Each structure stands twice: as C-alpha cells, then as structure tokens.
C-alpha cells in the first residue's frame, strides 16, 4: 500500500474499523462464496425457464437479464479499486479477475441469446441489425473489446505482457462506457434505470480521477 494514500486521506484511518486484512483461508472462502453468488442469476434463469415463468416475451427477458448482469458484474469489478482508494484496503482486489471473467461470462450468454434465440443465426438479419441500429453496434463493439481482456486474464499473460498488460486492461473503462451507452440507447423513453448505471459508473471513475490528480500534485 503506497504511503501517500494514508497521508492524503485521514479517512483511511477513520474507516479502518471495517476490518483488518482477513486470513488467507477466509479470503479463499469469500472467493468461493462470491463465485457461487455470481452463478445465481444464471440458475435463476434456468429455474424460471423450467417453470415457464420467463414472462410473455421470454427471449427478451433472457436477453435483458444476461445483459443486465454483465453490466452489474462490470460495475462490481470497477468498484474494487475505488474501495482501495477510499479505505486503503486492498485485499478485495484479489476478486477482480473473477468478477471480470463473470462479466465476460454473462456478456457471452447475452450475445448467444441474441444470436441464437433472438435471430436464430440468421446472419443477414444480424449484420443488418448491427449496422442499422446504433445501440446494437455499440454493444457489439463492447463485446469485441472484452475478448482480448478475457484471453489475457491469467498470470502467464501478465508475465508475458508486463507493462502492456496494464495498458491493455485499461480498455475496461471504454467497455464500461460503451456498455452503459448500449443500455441508454436501447431504452425507449423511461431512462431512469440506465441513468442510474451511468451515475454509478461516473462515480467509480470520478474516485479514480480524483486520486490520480491528488497523486500528481503530491
């Protein structure tokens, strides 16, 4: 933990009651728990499908649900660093890769739902849909950008790419913005929900920018 964080933010001390660094065993157990929690949205879809309870428009339901959870996982991933910046705790960063890969997992399900259930792999219609409709194009771009991140999410790649790995993975910010825009543009008129996600993303980015600027001044 860089010392400047403690110096810059006395808040780090005032929030230290949240807890000390848990034991390695506890961190591993948390990891299993988070893994299982992240599977709940998928299990829920299977449960609802089994009980024929995916609303009157099941394809759209699955499409929306997987898209929503991909965005949710992405925002979770992006919230780990701000927690470090605000509280000085960093052990939660150990879950970043898993959460990021869950975002990729739900994004894949989202894409498969779109290609298979919605468009039955009718490529002519799919290409037309992507070209003609800005929100689809933005979503497709976001997905393509997640591919290199998912492929390089392992220790071997970190060792291989070194500094460039960090640069590559800053793409996550672009993906997040595209993801929120994808949601904003798809909604017809009631923008309350996508705006909520835009605000959360803006806050998460603002914390980073604030600390970066203070670091530069220091």
């Amino acid at each position, binding site marked *: 933990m860089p010392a400047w964080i403690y110096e810059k933010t006395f808040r780090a001390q005032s929030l230290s009651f949240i807890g000390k660094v848990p034991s390695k065993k506890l961190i591993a157990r948390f990891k299993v728990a988070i893994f299982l929690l992240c599977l709940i949205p998928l299990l829920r879809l299977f449960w609802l499908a089994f009980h024929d309870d995916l*609303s*009157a428009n099941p394809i759209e339901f699955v499409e929306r649900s997987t898209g929503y959870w991909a965005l949710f996982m992405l925002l979770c991933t992006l919230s780990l660093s701000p927690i470090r910046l605000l509280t000085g705790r960093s052990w939660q960063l150990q879950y970043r890769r898993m959460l990021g890969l869950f975002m990729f997992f739900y994004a894949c399900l989202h894409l498969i739902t779109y290609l298979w259930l919605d468009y*039955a792999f*009718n490529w002519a219609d799919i290409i037309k*849909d992507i070209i*003609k*409709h800005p929100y689809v194009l933005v979503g497709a771009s976001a997905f393509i950008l997640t591919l290199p991140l998912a492929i390089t999410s392992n220790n071997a790649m970190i060792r291989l790419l070194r500094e460039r790995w960090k640069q590559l993975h800053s793409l996550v910010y672009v993906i997040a913005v595209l993801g929120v825009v994808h949601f904003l543009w798809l909604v*017809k008129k009631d923008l309350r929900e996508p705006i909520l996600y835009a605000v959360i993303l803006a806050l998460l980015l603002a914390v980073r920018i604030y600390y970066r600027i203070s670091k530069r001044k220091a």
Partner: protein
Amino acid sequence: MIIQTKSDIVPSEITPKEVFDDRRKFLQQAGFGLLAGATGLLSSPSFATSGNLPAQHKASKPLLKLPNFSKSKYGAGEKLTSFEDITTYNNYYEFGTDKDEPAIHSKLFKPVPWTVSIEGQVKKNKTISIEDILKLAPLEERIYRMRCVEGWSMVIPWIGFPLAQLIKWAEPNANAKYVEFISLADTQQMPGVNLPILDWPYIEGLRMDEAMNPLTIMAVGLYGEALPNQNGAPMRLVVPWKYGFKGAKAIVKIRFTDKMPMTTWMKAGPAEYGFYANVNPQVEHPRWTQSSEKRIGAGLFAGRIKTQMFNGYTEQVGQMYAGMDLRKNF
C-alpha cells in the same frame, strides 16, 4: 390454488351467456369473486381462459357489462395469444413503463362511469356515456394481429364496433380531415402520469379515411368480456395495420380537426415515430428490426416470424396509401 387450464376457447362458446353472466353477478354480489377464484371453487370451463391467472387479476374484473356480440370473419385460423399474456404484457405508460406494471397498477382503476366528449370540427360539441356508446352499433368479435413497434406481436380476439359508427353519430363537418383521440390522464388513478416520461395526456390520431376504414374499431372487450383495465378500459382504439402505439387507450375525448394532429410519440421521438406508423417491414426504425417480429407466447426457441406489409392487411388498406412515399410518411 391456481387452475392450470390453458385454452384458446372463448368462454361464451362454452357456457350460455346468460348462465355465465348470472354466475358472475351472483359471485360479485356475494363478494365471493376473490375467494372463489383464489380457492379454485370455480373449476368450470367458463373460467378456462383466465384459469391460469393469479387470483388478484380475477378480483379486478371489469365492471362494465357487455351486450351480446357476434363473430366475424377476421382472424380465422390464427392461433390466439393467451389471455394471460394479453393482460400481463402491456405498454400502457400511464400505469408504469414496465410491461407487467399496467396489470398491477390498474387494479383500482374505475372504467365506469365514463363519458366521452366529441369536439372540434363537428356539427355541435356533445358527450356520450360508455353505456350509450355500446348501443350505437352491434358488437362483434374481431381477431386481429397486433404488431408492436418494439418488434413483438400478438393475436387478440377484440370485441368492438367499427369506429365509423361512432363517427357517424359524432357528425363531423366538411372541415374534418383528421380525428384526434385523447386518453385519460388522471394523476389519482394513474401513477405513471405523475412522471414526465411522456407529454400527458396521451394523444393519437388518424386521417379521416383511415378512421372510417371498416378494419378500424373501437374495442370495448377481449376474450368475450369487457376490456381489462390494463388493456385500455373502457374503450380503446384498434388499428390493426398500424403499430400498436396508435391504439389510444381509455379514450375520453375525440376531436375532429382540419390539420394533422401532433401525437404523443411524434413529440417524444420525431425521428422514430411518425403520424402514419403503418406496419412496414421495409422502413427501418433506428432502434428495432422491423422486417421480423417475435410472436408472444411462441416460447424461448420459436425465433422470429416475418413481418408483413401493413401487418398483413394490405388488401383492405393498401389503396389508402397509393402514390404516397411511405418512407417519408412513416
């Protein structure tokens, strides 16, 4: 207990109308509607269509009593969308923007007493009660496809009468070129109206010839009964060759004009929603694919079906748009 019977059969086909009505009246008077529905006491076929609805939907059965209606030739061979899907998947922003919200938030809505006022380019302004509207013309069942601009569709057995009959009664003058339909915007009964999501009240419109077309109806019921609140009770417009948003619900005012009315969705998104809003697979929408559609109730693996020009009603309505550039007039 929820009765798990799914059926496309219209209740009036099974149970004689008088018996059916009497039993309902008895239950309503006795206040047992909720109890009977909830405990499954009524497992008779007359409730088959709504049998798989949660009890609370039964409790909110419309108060309006429909006269007898006749069958019509429309929609023969079409597979009807289930009553449950038609009444739980609604775009009715006055009651909320989620599809399931109208069914929930419209439970206490009162579709009677109801008066519709007639204004604008008419011989004289007048009002008419919903009961008198029902006496204007014999009711008939019209099974129509309904295509939503969002890319999904249903097949709905409406009960209604040709709008032309109401227009005849309204006596528009020679200046009347368009008809404007204004929906109720009651902040007390309609929670969605308190949000500035659309410019309330909801306004829709038709050109006079479109309004007079025999396909255009005022619907007052579906599946053999009075219109459920979430579907636009007590009276809504149905224009089957146009996107669903043209069908103004809970109409309180009909105004005849000499100029093309500015509709709610035209105001909300001029690049997306035009005045005509004819179903047209060739005219792209900035958001949704319009060349194909998802049929509600077809299931998770049914995919899409091709969208038809004028929603398949070209024979009846195509001539009204002869020579018009439908890309410009979308």
